[in-house]
């Protein structure tokens, strides 16, 4: 059975490749992919002053109906505590690498550690999740998670209904191209999964009326710390 399947698959592969080569007969034999010119005249970097970029990030995240607040590094724990109280968050999912100093005394931390991973059921029944992030993109108001420190696996930021994300000021980049350049290492060397989050999930499928929160966390809050 396995043998038959293998032969079937291999021949489809060969045939498709042959079809492509026949179809592109007009491409000179000696032409390399890099020989096909690609004009890269678009902006690669934002030269705006740092503070302006951070403000821009905050504005764009706010436009997605996510709540944003800016605090000093020292005021972080207090801000997180306050947010959790406002939202009545008691059972908070905490990925590995989130600094102990961030955790409010008032919540029960559900830790997702390598030995004892939380089940989907536990994530589903939690009140929310607290994470850091890899990057923030000012141009688009995007939070980037790359499964690194303080972010955890993908399901953690997907099943809980509330996501509180801490972005440090120095993690904010200006333009989309800068974000992809920054992430290249995590992807190429470690094959890490990357998730772009721009506001809470949304749909406009019913009469193009925007509804915030379909699947995934219906509420997204961002704290910018610096």
């Amino acid at each position, binding site marked *: 059975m396995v043998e038959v399947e293998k032969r079937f698959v291999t021949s489809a592969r060969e045939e498709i490749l042959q079809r492509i080569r026949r179809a592109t007969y007009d491409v000179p034999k000696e032409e390399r992919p890099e020989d096909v010119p690609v004009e*890269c005249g678009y902006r690669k970097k934002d030269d705006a002053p740092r503070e302006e970029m951070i403000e821009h990030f905050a504005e764009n995240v706010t436009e997605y109906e996510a709540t944003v607040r800016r605090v000093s590094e020292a005021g972080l724990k207090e801000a997180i505590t306050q947010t959790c109280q406002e939202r009545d968050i008691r059972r908070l999912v905490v990925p590995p690498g989130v600094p102990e100093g961030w955790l409010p005394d008032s919540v029960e931390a559900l830790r997702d550690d390598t030995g004892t991973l939380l089940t989907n059921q536990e994530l589903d029944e939690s009140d929310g999740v607290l994470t850091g992030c890899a990057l923030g993109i000012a141009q688009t108001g995007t939070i980037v998670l790359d499964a690194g420190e303080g972010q955890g696996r993908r399901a953690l930021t997907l099943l809980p209904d509330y996501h509180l994300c801490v972005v440090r000021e120095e993690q904010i980049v200006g333009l989309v191209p800068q*974000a*992809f350049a920054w992430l290249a290492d995590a992807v*190429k060397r470690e094959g890490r*999964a*990357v998730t772009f989050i721009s506001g809470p999930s949304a749909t406009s499928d*019913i009469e193009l009326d925007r509804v915030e*929160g379909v699947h995934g966390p219906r509420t997204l809050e961002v704290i910018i710390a610096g």
Partner: protein
Amino acid sequence: MTIEAPDAFSKGRTPTFEESARESLANAQLRRNIGKATQAIRTRRAQAVEELPDWEELRQAGYDLKTRVMRHLDEYLLQLEESVHKAGGHVHWVRDATEANRIIADIAKNHEAKEVVKVKSIATDEIKLNEFLEEEGIKAVETDLAEFIIQLAGEISSHILVPAIHKNRAEIRELFIKKLGAEDLSDEPSDLTNAARLYLREKFLQAKVGISGANFAVAETGTVCVVESEGNGRMCTTLPPVLVMLMGIEKIIPTWQDFEVFMQLLPRSSTAERMNPYTSFWTGVSEGDGPKEFHLVLMDNGRTEILADDIGRQTLNCIRCSACLNVCPVYERTGGHAYNSVYPGPIGAILTPQLVGIGRPGTDSLPYASSLCGACYDVCPVKINIPEVLIHLRGRVVRHRQDGGGLKGKLDPENVAMRTMARTFSDRRLYEAAQKAARISQWPLARSGAIHRLPGKLAGWTEARDLKPIPEQTFREWWKSRNGS
């Protein structure tokens, strides 16, 4: 059970665009829904694009990158295959819909899945995957809200991006009450959405197999990408232990860094957002995170035929944003169903006939479903010259009718007329004689400098426009008399 009208990718004869358009145009509710929706997206898209001073440069880069990929598609596919293998994924190559369906059903069966969760994917609609799985005893649950709605209603999509654009809130509420048994449901979109969330959450948590399409796949790293808004994509690609992704072979981009172009072009063109709510990028399988098994199915299904046509080739640049649908004056009035294809609108009018092959009456009518106004070309983020391809395909349709029709084709009145015209226009004497003859015979038709209606079969031509009569003196006659004096 889904009851589907025959579309271009199912068996049986497809109606022509004119036939179906007549039906759609008679439906006032549909026209209102589509008109309101396209207008709204159109305005928002223009604003989102306006924000970027380098939009034209991004479009050019997008076009260039796609051109590079198409010219060297074999190399890029091999590179992608190797990258995905290295990252722990499986790669399958399939020539057509039958092979694609078979392999996906087999993977589901190997894992004893009776039900699979699906992210919206037009590629899977193209191969009629849901129907195939159903015959194999596997239920495919659509999880995108609009797809979910039309699956419940047993209908087909009318817009690439907003498939349920033809249904209003009252109709959806009724459907949910009937099919989901939801009680106390208002017709507020937020309430309707919440009903779907609760129902689908259970499905996501139980599913053993997830199925998705691909927005992009990176040859260099093997990274694939799903761009979405609702989070159902993240659910389907993260929670089930087995993930199958079906992608057309044209969806490749060369390097990871090239996302910097396409992830700027796609969201703004498609939903008019700076960035769509969720984008997932993953590379093979990651230990302890997401699916344990990842299958990438690389599908041809007519794409290499498009590649072989040097004018049609640019069609493969398409990143399925749907901007061309929203600006099209024809689509705005007829809606998507008139195209009888999972790919409606201007892009569908060039993609569908090329994918299924020229020579089928239904799909051969699609290149004519356009006024050639060019709005689609202006908004296309990867600069597909849709009008150019439309005209090229009209030519192919006509040539096919002439060459392939045998004696019947030769005697077809239109073909006879065109052949006579061609002979007349290529011979000076014949041309001048024809002008003289026309001048004499046109007198009963010409009224105040215009012919408003041609007789007999030719009347179709003057239905929507006037014809200039042959003047008293033609340019050639004037030139001759000027030289003579």
